[in-house]
């Protein structure tokens, strides 16, 4: 198919899609007139039931906890898939992570980049941890916090070299952390079943003050495990892509 034919097919399909979209739009309530009821019901009940003031986290880690478990395993599978797709293929070799031509003139990482990356690393870890541990209070949670923590490891790579990144995040350790994160979430749910409750029931004490770090029972705990899983998954994905670029070469 030529590019022009392809464009015509696209235009015809797009016209059909636009017609369906318009048809659907006519049945929607206008912008700003959300009719409910599910969102409103949850807004009324969530603070009393879960002691969490971050209602989005309450939805994610409690009311829709089972869906979030699936979502977490999508990320788990994607990290594993990236590792499999980017493996060393037949006819490729992995060269050691050392400078093979120590005498050549490599432009060193500039002092400004190194300084800025190092200065950011600590605060970024703290911020990631803060986000992970405040799911029940603020617009935060394990997913956001985990990604921010993974950024800290990318900063280590930026400020140094790949070998330093590898030393800070050895694959077997990152793999283990990822497994603990994914398994911990599932285990919290299984514990509820063992107590004779429904899967992922929020069985821990909810605390006295709504929105406190110690409040909201399993929501805080699940957010912690999700943070571990997400951070480890993104470090693994980044590591695989970097390894592919820097270490794997053609030839045997």
């Amino acid at each position, binding site marked *: 198919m030529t590019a022009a034919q392809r464009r015509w097919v696209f235009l015809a399909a797009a016209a059909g899609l636009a017609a369906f979209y318009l048809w659907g739009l006519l049945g929607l309530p206008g912008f700003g007139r959300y009719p409910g009821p599910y969102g409103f019901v949850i807004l009324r009940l969530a603070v009393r039931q879960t002691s969490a003031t*971050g209602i*989005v986290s309450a939805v994610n880690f409690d009311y829709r906890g089972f869906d979030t478990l699936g979502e977490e395993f999508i990320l788990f599978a*994607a990290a594993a898939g990236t590792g499999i797709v980017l493996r060393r293929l037949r006819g490729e070799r992995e060269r050691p992570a050392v400078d093979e031509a120590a005498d050549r003139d490599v432009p060193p990482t500039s002092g400004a980049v190194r300084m800025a990356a190092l200065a950011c690393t600590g605060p970024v870890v703290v911020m990631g941890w803060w986000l992970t541990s405040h799911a029940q209070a603020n*617009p935060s949670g394990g997913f956001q916090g985990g990604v921010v923590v993974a950024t800290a490891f990318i900063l280590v790579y930026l400020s140094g070299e790949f070998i330093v990144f590898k030393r800070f995040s050895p694959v077997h350790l990152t793999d283990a952390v990822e497994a603990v994160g994914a398994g911990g979430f599932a285990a919290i749910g299984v514990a509820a079943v063992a107590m004779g409750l429904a899967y992922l029931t929020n069985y821990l004490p909810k605390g006295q003050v709504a929105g406190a770090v110690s409040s909201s029972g399993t929501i805080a705990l699940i957010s912690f495990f999700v943070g571990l899983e997400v951070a480890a998954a993104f470090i693994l994905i980044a590591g695989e892509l970097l390894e592919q670029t820097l270490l794997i070469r053609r030839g045997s």
Partner: protein
Amino acid sequence: MQYFPFVVVAWILGVGLYGVVTSRHLVHQIICLIVVQSSTYVLLLGVGYVTGAVAPYYFDVPVHTPAVDPVVQALALTDVVVEAAVTALLLSFAVQAHKRFGTLDPQELASLKG
């Protein structure tokens, strides 16, 4: 104005799809797919919006203040995570495709065999 956000959704979706169809580079195509998916964020948040309401966080506002729908916001979060996962996988496929066929042009890749 009542339907303006949904028009924006259609525009982002259309632009992204056009990019996917006409792309000449796999990485560009993957980015276009991200654009397509961004339209779903706008759609989800637009559907759940309530005029004059606050974000669904009662940390520093009294409980029972009217807030926007938290369920679609949670769905948008799911959407973002899935997008990140899909993008990572697609990019690693692009790396292997380039290694194997020496090109990243989807229209040339389509004419290759095996």
